[in-house]
């Protein structure tokens, strides 16, 4: 290359003002590009098909979650967490509830914890289905996507049965759930554990030993564990590099220590390994769900929230008929509750990595400061540096295997 590479510093779309004699071409990928699955902009300089340098611009759906959270009472922050990683909302909901319960020192009954585990693992499967299915689409295999998407619809049916919503679930309350899982929900979860394994197996058979898929993904965007840790990666993409860091195993919450599951790790940290890790995690999630179903049967039936009337919103019909419930309802809604002034950091294993909630509370109605440690945001920052030297087509599948969710990225 004869000319020095100019570094792009502007994040504005760069239009075709290049000198045709120049060897490098500036290309805008995004913010609305079908291959990026979300609103990410990458201004890259390409030499032929190869990326020389790139700059990521994010913030195209910045919605100021953290600022809103400072103006909302605790129970109204749950809908916000839904919209962080909207492919696996229940994990965010549960993470937020657990953060507040940690702040308020609420003890959660075992049955509720197992119910939470079921919901979270279902959400993890739904998220991994999307990521791996889309990775298949991007490498040219559309049919696998269609097979597993049907199962995702079934997971949404379960969520509908549990809470009434499909995507932005808003499941649960501080202290437990708003209602018990009904019979249909339990039956559907059991049915899911039966019908999903053959589909997942078929999906694996389409990809794992597929020559085209291996050629497209193996060795692409390989990352060493040192690099990954230095960029604070977490989640499946970190495990693909060989680091067995899973919040569920390292710092168990919600009784994960009682479950028998394995943390899959890769060796090369490339796109193929990430695919395998996510696939194996779906199998492990299924195992966890089956164990949780067994464990629930041994617990006293009908318990779906902790006995903490001062923090748990009472059912609406009781608010209208019961004096005590009315008082608690009023206290919680108006924020006149006795809460400790403290700060708490709680992390859960989100579908993309460590999802942390850093909450500073001054005793008021809403948090003094709430910060979300969003795995997509932290993971994505390595994308532009690691793209240099990559083919455009490789960079695209690298992006889909990072599974960056725009809502979580931009908060």
């Amino acid at each position: 290359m004869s000319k020095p590479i100019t570094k792009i510093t502007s994040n504005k779309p760069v239009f075709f003002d290049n000198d045709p004699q120049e060897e490098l071409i500036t290309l805008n990928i995004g913010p609305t590009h079908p291959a990026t699955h979300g609103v990410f902009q990458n201004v890259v300089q390409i030499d032929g098909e190869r990326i020389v340098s790139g700059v990521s611009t994010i913030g195209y759906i910045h919605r100021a979650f953290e600022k809103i959270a400072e103006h909302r009472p605790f129970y109204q922050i749950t809908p916000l967490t839904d919209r962080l990683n909207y492919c696996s909302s229940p994990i965010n909901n549960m993470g937020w509830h657990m953060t507040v319960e940690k702040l308020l020192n609420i003890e959660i009954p075992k049955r509720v914890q197992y119910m939470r585990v079921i919901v979270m693992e279902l959400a993890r499967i739904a998220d991994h289905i999307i990521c791996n299915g889309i990775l298949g689409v991007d490498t040219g295999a559309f049919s696998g996507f269609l097979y597993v998407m049907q199962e995702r619809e079934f997971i949404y049916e379960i969520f509908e049965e549990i809470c009434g919503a499909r995507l932005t679930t808003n499941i649960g309350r501080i202290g437990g759930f708003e209602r018990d899982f009904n019979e249909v929900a339990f039956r559907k979860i059991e049915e899911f554990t039966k019908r999903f394994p053959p589909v997942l197996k078929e999906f694996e058979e389409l990809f794992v030993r597929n020559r085209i898929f291996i050629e497209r993904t193996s060795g692409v965007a390989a990352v060493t564990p040192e690099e990954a840790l230095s960029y604070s990666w977490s989640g499946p993409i970190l495990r693909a590099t060989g680091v067995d860091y899973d919040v569920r195993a390292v710092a168990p919450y919600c009784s994960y220590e009682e479950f028998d599951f394995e943390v899959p790790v890769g060796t090369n940290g490339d796109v193929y390994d990430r695919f395998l890790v996510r696939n194996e995690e779906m199998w492990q999630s299924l195992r966890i769900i089956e164990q949780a179903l067994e464990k629930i049967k041994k617990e006293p039936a009908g318990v779906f929230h902790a006995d903490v009337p001062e923090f748990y919103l009472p059912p609406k019909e009781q608010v209208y008929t019961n004096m005590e419930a009315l008082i608690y309802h009023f206290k919680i809604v108006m924020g006149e509750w006795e809460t400790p002034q403290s700060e708490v950091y709680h992390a859960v294993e989100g579908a993309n990595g460590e999802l942390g909630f850093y909450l500073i509370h001054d005793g008021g109605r809403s948090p003094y400061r709430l910060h979300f440690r969003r795995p997509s945001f932290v993971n994505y920052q390595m994308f532009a540096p690691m793209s240099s030297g990559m083919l455009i087509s490789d960079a695209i599948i690298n992006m889909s295997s990072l599974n960056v969710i725009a809502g979580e990225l931009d908060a």
Partner: protein
Amino acid sequence: MSKVTLAEAPPGVEGAGFFATSLDKAIGLARANSLWPLPFATSCCGIEFMATMGSTYDLARFGAERPSFSPRQADMLLVMGTIAKKMAPVLKQVYVQMAEPRWVIAVGACASSGGIFDTYSVLQGIDEIIPVDVYVPGCPPRPEAILDGVLRLQEIVKNESLNRRNTPEYKALLEKYGIVTENG
């Protein structure tokens, strides 16, 4: 009996071997049943649109078989998800690039009104920057709701007069949004 249902013919004069109707109606019928969507998906509603396009709900049944990712070849712009102020110029650019006739559906609370995000960084409804034909409520709307929105738009398209895009009223509407039309 074939299982294929044909689109209903518009009212007209029928006789042995001929059928006469107005050109407006015939063209409206054709347009309404082959609306090519341009999915402008930014967040949660986009995931529900994936379900709408998928096998269970299948938007293709209504003539929207081919999602067009190029604005030039699209008829209906489906804006799904929050549009931040940073994104607004991009959305407007996409709208301007679309060829007439073009229609817009605002899917979900955020695109319609900003939704729960009443903040400094979010556009309070895309109708602040581009004209909208159909609003679909919901956060996110169910796939059925998105389908219903498309069906409502089909009604609008069927009954639109051929002249509408040349009227001074329409030009005034675009001018209100600061959009200059290609032919004037």
